[in-house]
């Protein structure tokens, strides 16, 4: 058997050292990194192009006649058509979501996280809610058409065949309910158990612990979910088409009085979808301007909610 010479070992050692310390560029890795980042930049670029496209497209209307656009009513000519009825419809939809869906959703989340035992029943409700969140919005429109428009028409809108802002508000409340439940449940789950145990330790009941400790701690997370779901409801058009939003001409629908809630209605996304289909440059500018108005509301709400959440996440 041949013995290795000390010089061999030294040579091998030097080779290993040079292998480890040699600074070799990882070209393939660098390329992959650039490609991955490119995909992300592309996604963000789409957002920028979209916003620039609608702002420049609607600039002629936004700069010269924004007042007319905001105060005018639906019509057949682009220069005289305005969004006042659509804004009123969208406003009331947001009100309905806040009054109906938010309390119901938060209460359901409290039940799931604080009261329900981890049994089969709670699991069933949980799966059910997750599925509801994935049901296409147009199917909720069918629900609204059957229940709120046809069955309860005499209550929701006796003079409008049930095609009222009440039906629209209730339909969209049902649509965002699962989203509110899921985000609120997540916020409640993030509350440290020590806070609950401290409450129980001094003899508080479950309701007292929830009211005075869990809800205040989870409030920022719940609020984020609420703002995101209101923004979602404001952007939904498909269910409103089925519930019977007016697309063409509307004589009523400017009054903010609660007594007008049974009248026919329209909303911002509905107007945008209708105007998109009309030919000509003027309609296109009006549509772009209407989109800018809606995006201003929806995106500011979204951005605010996201910042709020990140702010509180960092604090804890």
């Amino acid at each position: 058997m041949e013995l290795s010479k000390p010089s061999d070992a030294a040579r091998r050692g030097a080779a290993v050292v040079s292998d480890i310390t040699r600074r070799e560029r990882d070209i393939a890795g660098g390329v992959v990194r650039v490609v991955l980042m490119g995909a992300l930049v592309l996604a963000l670029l789409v957002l920028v192009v979209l916003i620039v496209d609608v702002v420049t497209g609607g600039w002629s209307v936004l700069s010269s006649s924004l007042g007319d656009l905001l105060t005018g009513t639906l019509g057949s000519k682009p220069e005289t058509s305005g969004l006042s009825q659509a804004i009123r419809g969208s406003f009331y939809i947001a009100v309905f979501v806040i009054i109906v869906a938010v309390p119901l959703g938060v209460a359901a989340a409290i039940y799931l996280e604080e009261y329900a035992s981890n049994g089969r029943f709670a699991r069933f409700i949980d799966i059910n809610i997750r599925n509801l969140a994935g049901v296409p919005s147009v199917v909720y429109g069918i629900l609204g058409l059957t229940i709120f428009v046809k069955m309860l028409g005499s209550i929701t809108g006796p003079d409008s065949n049930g095609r009222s802002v009440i039906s629209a508000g209730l339909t969209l409340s049902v649509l965002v309910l699962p989203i509110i439940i899921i985000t609120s449940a997540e916020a409640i789950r993030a509350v440290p158990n020590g806070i609950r145990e401290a409450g129980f330790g001094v003899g508080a009941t479950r309701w007292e612990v929830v009211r005075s400790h869990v809800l205040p701690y989870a409030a920022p997370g719940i609020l984020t979910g609420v703002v995101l779901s209101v923004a979602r409801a404001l952007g939904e058009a498909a269910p409103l088409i089925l519930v019977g939003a007016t697309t063409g001409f509307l004589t009523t629908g400017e009054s903010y009085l609660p007594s007008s809630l049974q009248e026919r209605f329209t909303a911002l996304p509905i107007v945008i979808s209708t105007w998109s289909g009309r030919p000509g440059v003027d309609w296109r500018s009006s549509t772009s301007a209407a989109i800018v108005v809606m995006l201003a509301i929806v995106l500011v709400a979204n951005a605010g909610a996201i910042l709020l959440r990140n702010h509180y996440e960092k604090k804890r």
Partner: protein
Amino acid sequence: MTVVDSPAPVSLQLSGRRARSERIARVLFLVAGLTSVLVSVLILWSLTREAWTFVSQVEAAALWTDGWFPRRGMYDIRTIVLGSFLITGIALLVAIPIGLSAAIYLSEYASPRLRRILKPVLEILAGIPSVVLGFFALTFISPEIVQRFSDADQFNMLAAGIAVGILVIPLVASVSEDAMRSVPNALREASYGLGARKISTTVRIVIPAAVSGLVAALIIAVSRAIGETMVVFVAAGATGGSLFSTNVLGPGQTMTAAIASQAAGTDQVVGEGLTFQSLFFVAMLLFIITLFLNLIADRFVRRVRQTY
């Protein structure tokens, strides 16, 4: 010796008022939890009644015709199912590569600072209403991209599909990023310890470990793309009905848009005999498909959570 009176025992029983409010709270929360079940029941009930009328009364010949023209009594379901699949396919071709790459970058490469800036922007993209993307598809994607490279119609399924894809990107990115970030760091460190580079670690360790979550992202993307209505309604044309066609450069209709366009702009859904009922049948089909997809996706998401 004096006897010290021990203090009167404090009752651990709740006072009547507190016990009552606890009972009331419990019942109210239970009722709120049950409304979600009620919503599911109402959806099923409203769908099945009219859908059953359609199935029991429609003639089989009307279900296999040249196209989907419900107002003329032609209910060719193939046309709109194919439309939905075409739009979904195009959307996935856009959303999966971009969404997945963005997720890998955010989870494995981006510094925490960069991530804090980029992620919210992606979430804002998720908040854009679909009707806006429909308008964008019609006025930008169709003339500036699709028509530049082909002789497509102004209303075409390709532009609508791309827009649906854009809509789904944030969803794909966020679900797959969640999956990859839930892979424990110890696995990455073990890989680095063996001398692996970042790219090998990502491709051979992180992605296989997160594969259930990535499959879930794919399924959720399919489910969302099939359920998307307004983009197709605004940008793909064929609102009156559509011939059976596999040409993505021409107009077309999906299940969702077929429902919306029958109801749009009219006080009552009009048309021959079963037009109104056909809408419920299509919605039922849509509900079953998405329910099935959502259940599978939920199972995959759960698997990631159980593993780590």
